[in-house]
């Protein structure tokens, strides 16, 4: 036996539309999700090798100075390596911070402010790092 009951009206959650990030931005979030995994694997290799060379092996930081960097960047391989690491790290870290702000920002206005500010800092860091890597000359 079946009884026709009107569907129960659930109250609209107070948080709906307030704390969630905007939806319907195409496939951006999917691409961001894939990017985090691909860049993550690459960064594990790039960063752990970088840290081992600069901080652990053969005295670590105590041998690092201008002459040491000149020797490394005399080889274009290390400039490309450092540029790839910088670019992936800024995109990976910037996107990670964007997701965290999406989770914790309490209003759309604050989300915009925090995400804009972090995008500017990440962007400027990338520009500064890129200029450093490619305008460096051993003479100074």
């Amino acid at each position, binding site marked *: 036996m079946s009884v026709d009951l009107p569907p129960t009206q659930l109250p609209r959650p107070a948080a709906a539309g307030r704390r969630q990030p905007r939806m319907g931005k195409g496939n951006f979030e999917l691409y961001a999700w894939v990017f985090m*995994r691909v860049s*993550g*694997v690459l*960064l*594990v290799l790039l*960063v*752990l090798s970088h*840290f*081992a060379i600069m*901080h*652990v*092996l053969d005295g*670590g*930081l*105590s041998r*690092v*100075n*201008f*002459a040491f*960097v000149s020797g490394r960047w005399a080889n274009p391989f290390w400039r490309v390596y450092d540029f790839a690491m*910088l670019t992936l*790290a*800024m995109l990976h*870290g*910037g996107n*990670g*911070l964007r997701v*965290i702000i999406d989770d914790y920002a309490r209003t759309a206005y604050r989300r915009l402010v925090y995400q804009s500010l972090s995008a500017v*800092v*990440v962007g400027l*860091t990338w520009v*500064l*790092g890129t*200029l*450093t890597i490619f*305008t*460096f*000359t051993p003479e*100074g």
Partner: protein
Amino acid sequence: MQRLGTLYRGREGMWTWVLHRVSGVAILFYLFAHVADQALLVVSPEAYNRVIATYRNPFVGLLEIGLAVLIIFHALNGLRIILFDFWSKGVARQRQMLYVQTVLFLLLAVPPTIAIGSKVIEDLRR
């Protein structure tokens, strides 16, 4: 009866999730400073060498070990997250994977701790 401490009583999974966020943000903020100090390479050799020389002390050495630990945790935990997503048995075996991750973390943390820690001890004795 279990005590209701917080609303969501996550276990290892929740805490590694928290640590992944905290370590990620900490590494990113370190990188802002790191890129800024490396920019001294295009200012002058003297400026770069002077700043790098200030890093040779026990306090910065301890921060350096902390950075190594954060990077190793974030790297291994990130690889475990990828295994959840792309390995069919990843989610079912997440706790076993965490044990493997912990062992690898301890193994990988040994070389930087010894290499940097020995300099910290050496500088403290001087």
